């Protein structure tokens, strides 16, 4: 059987020529025996291939392929299944950060398909790493990773069979829509619940609980107004400096101009912001707040007059200086804003 298979696969590899040959044979009415033989061979080869693919897919939802496997199972006919292939470079020395993220999403997608009730042998998910099959990359004229390609069960991949990663991003949902579009197979993406958050929360609660338990005999710190006020202030300052925007939009920390090498920490437009910028604003806001508190303390505390005077001067200095600084940053971002104070 093994010999037969090899024979068949040899045939399969030459199928492009062979199919032309068979057609001619049929037309001319000769070589009938050859035709039946070839059809039989194709059938067994196909079954063999599907069986092998199913076997792999049951082991790993994403089939890892090297150059040889790729040529035999994806490139060469006969096939009655579609294959979605991710071309990637996951080796650490390639330093491809995007590949890792894309790989995670792809695994989620493949797992959702693998364990869904609709799982069939109509579609398989595979991946080719650059370091294992660089010849494939050359063959397909591919010069960027990651790339997703769909190899339809019939015919050659068209232009739309290459996933537009730049436009659509690599979220599993997007890839699934693209697959549904290309193959009519709907993969419902089921994200495994993220246990990291609840675990961290539980851990934190445990730490807090044990701290409270250890200090159960003096729980005065729970009544410490300074600590509570400080926590509330931190939260408020974090929110007003736009950290939630950062959390949702994920902007870069700062921008480095590739031509001049200059790093700008402030985004030029009022519609967006860098992370560094929000940290600066957070600092300035808290400085103004601190200045106000100092002013109040200077007037009410029981310290000696010299210290109180210094506190007072420092307080008003902080308020005025950092507010005008903040105003100048705002002015730089909000074009056409006419007012400034102390500095431009």
């Amino acid at each position, binding site marked *: 059987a093994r010999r037969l298979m090899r024979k068949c696969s040899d045939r399969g590899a030459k199928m492009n020529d062979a199919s032309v040959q068979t057609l001619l044979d049929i037309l001319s009415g000769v070589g009938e025996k050859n035709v039946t033989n070839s059809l039989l061979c194709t059938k067994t080869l196909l079954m063999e291939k599907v069986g092998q693919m199913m076997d792999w897919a049951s082991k790993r939802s994403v089939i890892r392929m090297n150059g040889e496997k790729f040529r035999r199972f994806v490139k060469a006919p006969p096939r009655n299944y579609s294959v979605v292939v991710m071309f990637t470079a996951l080796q650490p020395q390639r330093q491809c950060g995007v590949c890792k993220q894309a790989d995670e999403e792809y695994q989620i997608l493949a797992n959702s398909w693998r364990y869904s009730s609709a799982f069939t042998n109509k579609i398989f998910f595979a991946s080719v790493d650059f370091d294992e099959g660089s010849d494939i990359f050359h063959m397909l004229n591919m010069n960027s990773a990651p790339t997703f390609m769909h190899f339809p069960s019939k015919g050659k991949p068209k232009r739309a069979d290459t996933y537009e990663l730049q436009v659509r991003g690599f979220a599993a949902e997007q890839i699934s829509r693209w697959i549904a579009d290309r193959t009519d197979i709907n993969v419902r993406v089921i994200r495994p619940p993220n246990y990291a958050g609840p675990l961290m929360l539980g851990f934190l609660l445990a730490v807090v609980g044990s701290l409270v338990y250890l200090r159960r005999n003096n729980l005065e710190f729970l009544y410490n107004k300074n600590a509570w*006020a400080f926590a509330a202030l931190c939260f408020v300052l974090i929110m007003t400096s736009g950290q939630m925007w950062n959390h949702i939009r994920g902007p870069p920390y700062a921008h480095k101009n590739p031509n001049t090498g200059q790093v700008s920490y402030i985004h030029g437009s009022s519609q*967006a912001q860098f992370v560094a910028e*929000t940290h600066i604003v957070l600092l300035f806001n808290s400085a103004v707040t601190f200045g106000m*508190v100092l002013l109040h303390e*200077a007037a009410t505390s029981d310290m000696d007059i010299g210290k109180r005077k210094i506190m007072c001067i420092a307080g*008003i200095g902080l308020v*005025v200086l950092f507010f005008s600084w903040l105003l100048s940053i705002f002015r730089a971002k909000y074009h056409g804003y006419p007012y400034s104070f102390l500095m431009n």
Partner: protein
Amino acid sequence: MELICLGHFVLSHNPEVWILGELMLNCSWGGVGGDSIHRIHPALECHSLVVSLSSFLLRFNYRSTHHLTSNGFYEFLNWFDERAWYPLGRIVGGTVYPGLMVTAGLIHYVLNLLHMTVHIRDVCVFLAPIFSGLTAISTFLLTRELWNQGAGLLAACFIAIVPGYISRSVAGSFDNEGIAIFALQFTYYLWVKSVKTGSVFWTIGCCLSYFYMVSAWGGYVFIINLIPLHVFVLLLMQRYSRRVYIAYSTFYIVGLVLSMQIPFVGFQPIRTSEHMAAAGVFALLQAYAFLQYLKDRLTKQEFQTLFFLGVSLAAGVVFLTVIYLTYTGKFSLSLMRYLCPPPRYAKIHIPIIASVSEHQPTTWVSFFFDLHILVCTFPAGLWFCIKNINDERVFVALYAISAVYFAGVMVRLMLTLTPVVCMLSAIAFSSVFEHYLGDDQKKDKEGLGPNIKSIVTMLMLMLLMMFAVHCTWVTSNAYSSPSVVLASYNHDGSRNILDDFREAYYWLRQNTDEHARVMSWWDYGYQIAGMANRTTLVDNNTWNNSHIALVGKAMSSNESAAYQIMQSLDVDYVLIIFGGVIGYSGDDINKFLWMVRIAEGEHPKDIRESDYFTPQGEFRVDKAGSPTLLNCLMYKMSYYRFGEMQLDFRTPPGFDRTRNAEIGNKDIKFKHLEEAFTSEHWLVRIYKVKNEGSSRTSSFLRKARS
């Protein structure tokens, strides 16, 4: 009360138009408070009041108020609006918060009773400034309860001019938020008052005010969660008292019954998870009070056993009920929807929510723009409040923390943050001024000396002055131009008024059949219904996503496919907004990708977003643009005949000023449509759908009959 003086103004801006309005002006504290005159800025600037109802949403509110005053309250509740959402129609009475319309209608009724013949339109225009005056009063009262009278006055001054609130209360902005912020602040004032006194009288007042809030705005959910949170935290802090018990028990029961009287709210307060916190705290409070009662009667040992048993039993019962209810689907645990950032939730689920710019998270620039110095100083007020904590300051601290979270998540909710920021900033400034203005009272302590004191006072006043200047600038530049009338500025600073919208709506009103159906993107639905009085397919009440997607599909398909859709929807006219001639960036081509996305969500087979991009992933209207885009209906309607038009000598013909590109498809011909109207600056273009079948009856009606 000396803070507010009532003014009676007779404004004769234009010889033909006489405006009679009652305005409330804050004229305290130097010139600062007087800036609320800016609220009527837009009304004064536009040549007649007809246009001064500003943003897109408001047209509908005005229309329903008009319906209310002309047909009466019951007729309004039963109103089925067949002019919207053709061919579906819309039940209005049960799907709106009626507070705004009823308030305006009531004022109109009372004024007419006193033989002051005022048109309902004028009442609507000046409703928001009047209510912002009331907001200032209630902020004063609330801050006085929390701190002292001086802080109250400052807080009222701040809220009178702060841009974050002016944005919703300029004259002519006739929408729910305008009156809702007053109701919010007043409810909180009465709540603090009732917690302080423990009297049922104040609590009933609080419930009535809450009822008004429920009738006015969906944001009442904020109140019904914040007040229970306050009670819960008071319990945790062992600040339970009989006053809290009386206040909350009364508030919960009466408030619940009252809120269920609003048709749109109905049974939600006992069904949805947003309201469950209130119920839980109510039960907890009863249990706590009962235990307190038992504690006095039982021995310590008995009490401990009972306490343990009771707590574990209650926890088990609550847990099982929640599981049972969730399992049977009686109520969904949709609380996550509120806590997790909405844009992220919506980005995956509903593109239409993500497409509204108000649902975006807030940058620090918007915080600073809307609050200026208050945003840096209000944490200091929070600090003082927590350092000198008492029952009502717990409330304001919780208010600040929750509101700042929601404002960070969504720009729109900046509105709920603004009042508390004003109050806390006022507390911060007031506690500084308290010590630096005036002489030293205490003789035993050495003062800081007059020099330092006057320097500090001067600098602080300067900062406040800058705040006032900032507010004036923001109001006159950003918030006071009604979006129905656009203004453009020439090089010498003179101003052109672009009145294309009104021109086009007037044309529709005068030249089309009374029952004509106009298709447009949903942003303009209320305007068409209100100003042109024609039937629309979709409007700003975006309750039916698939209908909107159908319109989006028609706009993004090619002409013949679009014609099929338009035929099936009986469209007579198509209205689009095109800004390429004057460089108006809010036009339909710039919104176009949202139409595609929303259409793709419902019809993924026919519309694909990637088809509208170039292979490089750009959205371009010039020659390099994708052929699908260059031949879709929206593109053709926007740029029809535009290729012949040369705007100035430096640019080629067909140069789009908004997108700075020469258009790619200059040879546009229509088969099923014809141009009906284009406004002066090409801002509004209206096309007529050719009626090819001679006896065309509505295919929808036909389907319905068979």
